[in-house]
């Protein structure tokens, strides 16, 4: 049974949002300039605001973020006609990157109230599995052996272990995440078994800043020590570099003050675990901050009802409203 406070369906959340008539830039345009005669002063991005037809675990993960933005727009609209852009993202290609290059921009992500100015990057690796046998399915014994070896190698690659930290599978998800957030995370994209030919593994990586193709190669080498005679790394590519914005701009100063006033403590900084629109904006804009309420993700979250913590939502909304208003008035 899925239920999110008064919202019974995901489209209720989306409809609430749309009813507020935010200024949306779904395609590249200069509508704001045409409407107001000048550029907007603040932009808010809500990446991956998917128009889903039914509620999924994905929506659960982002529901706090979406509700917070709805409430913030309500707040702002009650005050004045804000020169704030709400960027509703449906697809990556929608991003009007150049148009927003110089604006203070807030990217709303489930950061658990942390400030995030570092987003991890992505990469891909192609690995050749050196098998001595043809992979014909008619020899089922040989094929089964091959699959067993592939299975072993894959687990060797994706397993994370550490001599001090509880990062391996089976550990508590919260404590595990404290550490693996900074690690090179490796997952499998494709396994290609050509009849009577090569076996190739395509891997996808999440990479921290400072990681190079060399450090990735070294990490893969460490994880695959015991398989070094069986595999060969063919190609490593960083497809989306990790980014780091130094938080010394007006937006960071204003957000810090708003955070102190709202939560009565200094904000904490944490990385975002995968690339988002933040990575692309950071190529041309350094007045960026990613922040948002927490994501109620857990292993069993799809099996239970989710009730939103109204107090937390109110506080985050207050913080966001203060930050935007102070940016508009600065």
């Amino acid at each position, binding site marked *: 049974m899925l239920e999110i406070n008064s919202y019974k369906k995901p489209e209720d959340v989306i409809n609430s949002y749309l009813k507020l008539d935010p200024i949306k830039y779904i395609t590249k345009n200069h509508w704001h300039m045409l409407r107001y005669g000048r550029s907007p002063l603040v932009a808010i991005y809500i990446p991956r605001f998917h128009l889903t037809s039914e509620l999924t675990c994905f929506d659960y993960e982002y529901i706090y973020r979406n509700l917070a933005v709805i409430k913030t727009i309500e707040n702002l609209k009650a005050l004045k006609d804000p020169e704030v852009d709400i960027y509703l993202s449906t697809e990556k290609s929608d991003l009007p990157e150049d148009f927003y290059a110089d604006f203070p921009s807030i990217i709303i992500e489930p950061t658990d109230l942390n*400030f*995030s*100015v*570092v987003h991890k990057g992505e990469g891909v690796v192609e690995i050749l599995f050196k098998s001595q046998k043809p992979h014909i399915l008619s020899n089922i014994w040989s094929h089964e052996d091959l699959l067993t070896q592939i299975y072993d190698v894959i687990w060797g690659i994706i397993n994370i272990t*550490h*001599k*001090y*930290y*509880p*990062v391996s599978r089976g550990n508590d998800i919260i*404590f595990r995440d*404290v*550490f*693996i*957030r*900074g*690690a090179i995370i490796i997952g499998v994209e494709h396994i290609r078994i050509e009849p009577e030919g090569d076996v190739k593994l395509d891997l996808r990586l999440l990479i*921290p*800043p*400072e990681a190079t193709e060399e450090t990735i190669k070294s990490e893969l080498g460490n994880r695959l020590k015991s398989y070094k005679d069986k595999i060969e790394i063919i190609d490593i590519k960083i497809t989306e570099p990790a980014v*780091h914005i*130094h*938080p*010394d701009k007006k937006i960071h100063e204003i957000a810090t003050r708003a955070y102190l006033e709202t939560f009565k*403590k*200094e904000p*904490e*900084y*944490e*990385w975002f675990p995968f690339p988002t629109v933040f990575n692309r904006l950071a190529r041309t804009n350094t007045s960026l901050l990613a922040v948002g309420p927490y994501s109620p993700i857990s292993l069993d979250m799809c099996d239970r009802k989710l009730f939103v913590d109204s107090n937390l939502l109110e506080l985050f909304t207050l913080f966001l409203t203060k930050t935007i208003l102070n940016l508009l008035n600065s």
Partner: protein
Amino acid sequence: MRLTTVSKPIQAGNILIMPFTEFSYFREPRIIINDIEAIPEHVVKYDARVDIMDPSSKKRCFLVEHVLGPLRLIGITNAKVVGTDVNWNFMRPEHRFAYSIGLSPRFVVGEEDGTQRPALISIIDSLDQYVIKSECRVYKSVSKEVIYENMDPFGYRGRIVISPRDENEGITLTVRLFKNYIEDIHITENGLQDKTLLKKILSARTPYLIGIDSEESLYHAIGDVTADIIGLGGLTDADIKVELNFFYHALTVGAIKRAQFIKRVKEC
């Protein structure tokens, strides 16, 4: 008690402990880490760890409890400390935080394995060669009893009572961490005299890596309580009784932030 510093720089794991020369200015126990005074007012995070921040420069120092507790347990009340780590370990949340705000790894002064300060074990049998007692005789305690209780995010209740003591009575600690407890640990001008216990504390890992119920976690927690109450508070004489919960720095630092102090300088 007499304020005590180191006679020469000591490299202890990922920190360098250096002599303190400003006794006539500070006139009380005071540890300065990466140019930030470790005092309750400078603490900006206190839950699973303790961070301090200079209000002017906004520079932040992470995991200071693993400096403050060990130093006081070996009898050092005053020192200047700098972190010496140069390599990033992004598995550590403190390193990711420091990197985010443009600080170097040396601002993280806790060891990566979560221990208190095992590098000091090698000098505790010959401390005379490393410490120097100043002419400053100081008394600092709480001016009235501090009783503080809180609830951690998991619903465990914590309670701490800090009671004033007279001059030269030293510090007495009673610590309970879930099922394990230890009573009447005595810390004087010369630190903790039970060397067996001292070694266990200095090498104990944090409960957040090994589990809250282990005996080693209790030893670690004794170091943390020493850091948060005696280290940050700069106390010379007090009785401390504490029943810790999970993120117990919220309890201990919460208490010392609420404390009012009495201080007398005899000679300096």
